[in-house]
């Protein structure tokens, strides 16, 4: 049972610039081969949680002050990003941080930085297999690609590192609904084919809970709810706040939710 666990966050607190506390005791578990999704509104601390895992807090002057992060049973909290990426944890940053002046294929090759000098031809083929759109654009500068292509590019770039845990930060941000669907299908396929463990931070709770095995809900730097994705989808609170549907399954009227505002407006 114990070695079934890929990642374990044990009551961690994160403080920025020594004063601003963002995470207040977050605990979560990611099992091997699972997709775990982390939901929550803006500012809940989802991205900070991911950065605490991947070591990218450091350049932003953030620090894990309490608790521990264990990866395959070994503590990794406050390690440098160079060390953590070499252990197999890769974070795909929010907002498609592509290398503008590198071509698509060069962007993908940067993903091999953690295993410099080893052959990468097979991985390129694998990425082009999952994201055929990239193959057609491989010689183009990434700066001129569309939003959808860029999202595929940064995910493919993460896969080039052969991660054992891939952290995805809002892959659906600013994409058309059809494209979001495609991206999520690819995420599911990657999880099934390659056995990659994934942690998914999303605003699009509906999509996220459809592909995830397990889910956590964050508010104000704390985990407020956790359960199987199935059960979360059925939970009345989650339905109301994150899925936008009421208990009956119909859309809840604006009047019922915010009646006080309405009255104010009509006074």
């Amino acid at each position, binding site marked *: 049972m114990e070695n079934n666990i890929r990642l374990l966050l044990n009551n961690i607190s994160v403080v920025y610039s020594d004063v601003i506390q963002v995470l207040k005791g977050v605990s979560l578990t990611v099992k091997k081969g699972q997709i775990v999704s982390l939901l929550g509104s803006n500012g809940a601390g989802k991205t900070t949680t991911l950065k605490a895992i991947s070591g990218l807090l450091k350049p932003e002057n953030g620090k894990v002050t309490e608790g521990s992060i264990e990866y395959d049973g070994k503590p990794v909290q406050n390690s440098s990003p160079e060390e953590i*990426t070499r252990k197999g944890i*890769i974070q795909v940053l929010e907002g498609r941080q592509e290398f*503008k*002046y*590198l071509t698509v294929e060069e962007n993908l090759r*940067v993903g091999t930085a953690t295993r*410099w*000098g080893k052959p990468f031809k097979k991985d390129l083929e694998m990425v082009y297999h999952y994201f055929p759109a990239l193959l057609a654009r491989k010689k183009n500068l990434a700066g001129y690609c569309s939003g959808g292509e860029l999202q595929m590019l940064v995910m493919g770039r993460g896969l080039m590192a052969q991660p054992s845990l891939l952290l995805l930060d809002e892959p659906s941000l600013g994409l058309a609904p059809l494209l979001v669907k495609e991206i999520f299908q690819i995420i599911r396929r990657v999880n099934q084919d390659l056995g990659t463990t994934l942690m998914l931070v999303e605003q699009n709770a509906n999509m996220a809970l459809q592909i995830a095995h397990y889910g956590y809900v964050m508010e104000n730097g704390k985990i407020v709810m956790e359960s199987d994705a199935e059960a979360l989808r059925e939970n009345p609170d989650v339905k109301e706040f994150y899925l936008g549907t009421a208990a009956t399954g119909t859309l809840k009227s604006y009047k019922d939710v915010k009646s006080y505002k309405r009255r104010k407006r009509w006074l």
Partner: protein
Amino acid sequence: MEFFLQLLVNGISLGFLYALSALGFVMIFKSSSVLNFAHGELLAIGAFMFLVLSAWAKLPIILAFALTLIGSFALGFVIERLFLRPLIGEALIEVIMLTVGLAAMFKGLMLFIFGGDIHDYPKFLPEGLSMEWGTIQIPSVYVATFIIGILFLIIFGLFFKYSSQGIYMRSVADNQPAALSLGVHVKRVFAMSWAIAALVCAMSGVVLGIINGINVHQISSVGLKVFPVVILGGLDSIGGAIIGGVIIGLLETFTGGYISTSLREVIPYIVLVLILMVRPYGLFGLVEIERV
């Protein structure tokens, strides 16, 4: 006409020398956005290193040259490690001020060790390298500069375009947080760019020493010329550095030949201002890719 051709040849050769030295400057700027004010001093260090090895230690020329390149490469690493790494994360202006300090320190040290006199290398370039067409002469130094310059530009071009390490270096220049998230060793990239820069500087320093003799003040003042060259070509473009170098070289020799030798040093800066008015990124600087 012959006078014109001779000036043309001189200008291009001089330009190539400037381009070669500007390469080191561009390298550092490209990866870490640092303007290196110790550039001229790095040129001088390379020239003196070769002097010590060839004239004083009397090593064979090839060996001395190779050791100079290796030594300066190592020096670049050491400079980054000792002086620049502690400043990672600090404001850019502090790092730039540090290079000003480094320049003063290196200059002082060299004056202390070698004095202010002009030193000379033993003659070693084969006379057969020099070329002649009618009355036009290309001294062997310039021919050697040309060959070495082109060779190195090709090597660096290939390195940055195709090698993994070159691609990692470009990724850091492009988007540092993203490079970090993929496990690129950003500090190693900075160290590498300083090492390569010091190596290229040493090479141009040696060539300058062959042409003019080796003197701290003279060689480090050539380092200043790197500014019009790289600003003209675009601070982050290797191809631009070459063309910028050739343009400045030509401007200098033609002004010196046809107008007056005292205007020689000023004209490049005037043209620089004019070009920047039309193309603020320089001739070949990266135009910001903007998403709208």
